[in-house]
């Protein structure tokens, strides 16, 4: 029977059916991918359109999906019935964990004669109905609801296409299958199905994320202060406060520029009540002028070149890296504790600038070596902004002081 069936199929008919089948797979891909973009879809009817759409159904074509799908479908493996064409929908969390949610599968099986009307027009109409079914079914699988709730802060939905047996083991235990429909044609039976995950528990892989960012509500409990935390972590190596202030807790002590005799303590005025640093505040101010010393300028210009180099090399990545540097060194930044309100009014800006620069030039951890340094001009601007917000900081600190029982 199969032979007779093939005999009846002319070259033109086969070509036509191949074309229909390929376009069905292409349009099915569009339907599936677009349904997972997280937005409601609405396409208008075109009652007077001159150029007919495939299968008389208004399905938008996203160029990137067309390109991706054609890459896979043009291999003709699909029409040889060796492998099914699969579209895998997966979820990726903001932490980088992945979970495959469902796999849609278009398969071409060996043909069989059902005795029904198998002319081109009839098959074309049935393919239209099959696509409509696909549109309806894509809205009711569990992945649809998830896709509508996606966002860059929580998770995003991803897709990929491949020509192989569907990887059902990725869908976890208890996955289910839906057969969307099938059409018998002379070149084979086209079958559309979906296998989807039912257990949505994600097991996060251990990421090497830095958990050093400490979130705490009790800022005024001195025992829990981040400052104490840093000091305590470096207790085994340092015996005096001045040493601690000079060398970062985890920094490489062998770095050359740290051997320079820059003995002035940054923010020493903040600790004037606690530590005896000599009775010469005027000297402090003079020393603060060191920030414009030739050596400093050399180093700054050096770092400025690096930034431009980075900008040239990395383009868009620069901003991202700068953000990263702010996050990763957030602990140290907190050490400043926005203390300008407590600083002496004279010279506080320079002192802060100098501290920032020193902090910037401090020996970097291996991880942060690639990060570009902050430019001096940006720093100045940043400090000026902080300065302009001084009153606001003052008032915040005052309100906190009033409400905190631990603070005297």
């Amino acid at each position, binding site marked *: 029977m199969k032979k007779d069936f093939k005999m009846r199929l002319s070259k033109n008919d086969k070509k036509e059916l191949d074309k229909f089948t390929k376009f069905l797979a292409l349009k099915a891909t569009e339907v599936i991918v677009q349904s997972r973009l997280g937005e*409601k879809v609405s396409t208008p009817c075109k009652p007077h359109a001159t150029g007919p759409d495939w299968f008389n*159904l208004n399905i938008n074509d996203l160029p990137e999906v067309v390109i991706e799908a054609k890459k896979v479908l043009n291999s003709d493996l699909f029409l040889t019935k060796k492998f099914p064409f699969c579209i895998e929908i997966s979820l990726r969390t903001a932490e980088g964990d992945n979970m495959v949610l469902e796999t849609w599968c278009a398969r071409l099986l060996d043909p069989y004669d059902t005795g029904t009307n198998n002319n081109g027009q009839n098959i074309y109409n049935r393919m239209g109905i099959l696509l409509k079914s696909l*549109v309806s*079914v894509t809205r009711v699988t569990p992945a649809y609801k998830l896709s509508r709730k996606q966002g860059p802060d929580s998770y995003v939905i991803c897709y990929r296409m491949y020509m192989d047996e569907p990887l059902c083991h990725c869908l976890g235990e208890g996955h289910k299958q839906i057969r969307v429909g*099938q059409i018998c044609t002379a070149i084979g039976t086209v079958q559309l199905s979906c296998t989807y995950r039912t257990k949505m528990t994600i097991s996060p892989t251990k990421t090497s994320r830095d958990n050093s960012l400490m979130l705490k509500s009790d800022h005024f409990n001195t025992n829990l202060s981040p400052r104490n935390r840093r000091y305590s972590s470096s207790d085994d190596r340092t015996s005096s406060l001045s040493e601690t202030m000079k060398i970062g807790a985890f920094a490489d002590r062998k770095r050359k520029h740290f051997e320079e005799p820059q003995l002035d303590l940054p923010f020493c005025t903040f600790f004037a009540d606690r530590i005896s640093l000599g009775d010469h505040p005027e000297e402090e101010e003079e020393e603060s002028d060191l920030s414009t010393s030739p050596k400093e300028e050399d180093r700054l210009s050096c770092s400025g070149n690096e930034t431009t180099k980075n900008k040239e090399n990395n383009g868009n990545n620069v901003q991202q890296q700068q953000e990263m540097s702010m996050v990763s060194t957030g602990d140290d930044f907190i050490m400043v504790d926005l203390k300008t309100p407590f600083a002496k009014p004279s010279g506080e800006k320079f002192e802060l600038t100098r501290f920032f620069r020193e902090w910037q030039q401090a020996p970097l951890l291996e991880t942060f070596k690639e990060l570009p340094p902050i430019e001096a001009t940006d720093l100045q601007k940043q400090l000026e902004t902080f300065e302009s917000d001084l009153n606001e900081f003052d008032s915040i600190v005052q309100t906190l002081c009033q409400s905190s029982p631990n603070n005297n």
Partner: protein
Amino acid sequence: MNARSQVFELTLEGRQADEAVASLFHTVLFHRCLGKFLYNNESSYSVSTVGFTDVDCDFIDLTYVCCSSNSLNRQVKQEISNFSEQLRSNESNGSGQISLEFFQRKPSRYLFLQPECIPWEVWTVRLQLITLENEVERQLCRERVGDHLTDKILYITEVMNRQDYLPKMPSKSDTDLVFDTSLPDVQPYLFKMNYSISGPSSGTSVGTTMRKFIKESLNL
């Protein structure tokens, strides 16, 4: 010819009734709507494009798809609203059914008679209304009804892809015997909607109906 018949039964809250019926009937109609036929001559035609729209339900955890045709959607909504209003009124005992029937017209042998309507597919939704006590129950009901409708939508698509009977594509002069050509943007197969509501005192069994009928006859 016997019409194919599918019956869905749902238990839900009154305010979910409209959306539940709409989600099922629109899924069916989406499959049973074609683009407008543009005839070149008596037997040759081209078909225009049908658009579709996602609809989020307010009272059920569900999104369904319908044709992007305002005129069709207005017509369907009106029928469902009439049914739902009666179902939720005091005259009802909270149960009723609504049917979507596809039919084709057969010209009568006698010119003065109306053409005969022959149904070929009937979709019936039977509803039983319940009252919920609190929001927790309401939330559970939202999800439960959403899951049930999901199963039914999957069943509809399964039926639609069977190689079952569909009226033949008509020639230009016979189009109105198969399709509703009154709508400007889509061309559904001819369909009508019927509904019935059970009154508070009347049962649904044949026996009760017969008793009522005999009683009324005797009184006359």
